């Protein structure tokens, strides 16, 4: 799931202070699970903004609302009429939700209420850890199920650098060295020999570095292609 954290309140206040009618708009999926931006947190943030406004003597109307997900239009379309009555939507959805709503809302600004972090697991209540970087080319079968792209501070591909110290990463004694874990895990699995081979430079274009990504299911792609064809044919006859 996507893990985010509420922005520092002062930062939020700077964003919203000049608006008269603000909707804090929560998303009840990933960011709700990490207690950052669900309906509950939207309500809390709205209350905090109202109090700050009262303290600062700023006249401001602040409401809150939440829908199941911000990344699928069917969830927020039913409330868009109400949403459009505000001067500002402060979205506590992840960055995906902010972008997505922003594209569809018209001329009303949508600002982020949370900092979107990473894809995380929940090893225990209230703890979220990054395990996958969404690089677009999974090699976990080569690394004992532990991702060096996400979990090695240098995203190294060929084993631990010289900075491994007592199984921890050179950036902090709090951070596990991913490669240390990988080697230990591969030993357990009896597949350490996979780490004896040199991995050539990676093709990073499957990740963010290749530009924004899009996944289209095959049957949809066929349909899209058909549509395009028809359009160009139609265009052709027009001319």
């Amino acid at each position, binding site marked *: 799931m996507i893990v985010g954290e509420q922005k520092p309140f002062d930062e939020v206040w700077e964003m919203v202070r000049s608006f008269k009618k603000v909707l804090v708009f929560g998303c009840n999926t990933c960011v709700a699970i990490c207690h950052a931006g669900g309906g509950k947190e939207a309500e809390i943030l709205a209350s905090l903004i109202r109090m700050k406004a009262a303290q600062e003597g700023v006249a401001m109307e602040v409401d809150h609302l939440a829908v199941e997900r911000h990344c699928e239009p069917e969830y927020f379309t039913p409330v868009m009429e109400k949403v459009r009555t505000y001067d500002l939507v402060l979205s506590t959805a992840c960055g995906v939700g902010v972008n997505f709503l922003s594209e569809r809302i018209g001329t009303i600004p949508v600002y982020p209420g949370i900092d979107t972090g990473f894809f995380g697991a929940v090893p225990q209540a209230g703890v979220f850890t990054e395990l996958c970087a969404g690089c677009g080319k999974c090699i976990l079968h080569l690394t004992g199920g532990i991702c060096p792209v996400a979990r090695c*501070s*240098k*995203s*190294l*591909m*060929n*084993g*631990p*650098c*010289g*900075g*491994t*110290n*007592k*199984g921890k*990463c*050179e*950036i*902090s004694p709090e951070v596990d060295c991913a490669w*240390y874990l990988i*080697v*230990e895990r591969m030993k357990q699995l009896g597949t*350490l020999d996979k*780490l*004896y*081979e*040199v*991995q*050539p*430079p*990676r093709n*990073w274009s499957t990740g963010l570095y290749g530009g924004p990504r899009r996944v289209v299911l095959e049957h949809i792609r066929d349909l899209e292609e058909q549509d395009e064809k028809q359009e160009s044919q139609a265009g052709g006859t027009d001319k």
Partner: protein
Amino acid sequence: MKSGSNLERVIASGKPAVTAELGPPMSADPHEVIKKAGMLKGYCDAANITDCQTAVVRISSIAAAVLALQAGLEPVMQMTCRDRNRIAIQADILGAAALGLKNCLCIAGDHQSFSAAGRLKGHPGAKNVYDVDSIQLVGILKKMRDESLQEGGDKLEVPPKLFIGAAFTPGGDPMDYRPYRLKKKVDAGADFIQTQGIYDIEMFRKQMEVVRNLGVHERTAILGGIIVPRSAMMLKYMDASVAGVSVPPALIQRMMKARDAAGDDKKKAKELQEAEGIRIAVELIRQVLEIPGIKGVHIQAIEWESAMPEIVKAAGLYPRPTFND
């Protein structure tokens, strides 16, 4: 000859090679480099020019290497994977070769959060690159040199003739995997290897035994790393905090004894410790060179280049071989 560098020639001659280290300054003034080069000249076969070590901005390795070269000291430019993607790396390699540089050490580089282990501000907010890792970098250099091909496959008209180096941390964990990782570097094309500083000779011997069993020592020249100790405090710090370095308690005690002999006299304590440090370094050099498969030493007298002549002489490694062609 792959590169024809002085270092390559010394190694080819079968005599123990000596490399040193030269850290460029945080300054646009070339004199510091020239001064240090002068101190090292004649006491080593080549000197590593660090590449923004500990993630702190200094004169770039290539530029400083050229300054050293001009001052008569053969440089080993260092190339980290932290700051450049494969495009920048290859461009810099071509440029470096064009400027006459012949040795290159490929390393991952300290993480940008390192900031001189917190002693300087550094740039912890910088975005790192790590497009390729050190092993992949070795492979890229080898492909450029031997196949005249860029990593992407495009042709190079004139390939860069470089003597390619890589690092080895024998005491880093997971220790049992380290020799295999070294082998990967050599498989990728490392001509020479410089190790992390060795104090625990026993550990190094054992690791070298594994290295020899893998046949790696025959395909590359391994230079044992010697970090010249300067004080008991430094040894304690390295033992506790420097990754892959462990210092036997006996060495620390020797240093403490030297310090304590001076009583409250701080100046004297420094002198006594430095003298002991040089003695330790010389002993370590001798022990390392005795290990089968070792082709030389990489001596780091960090910010203490002036100690090099004494150490090299005491270790019986002076004068350095010269070649007259």
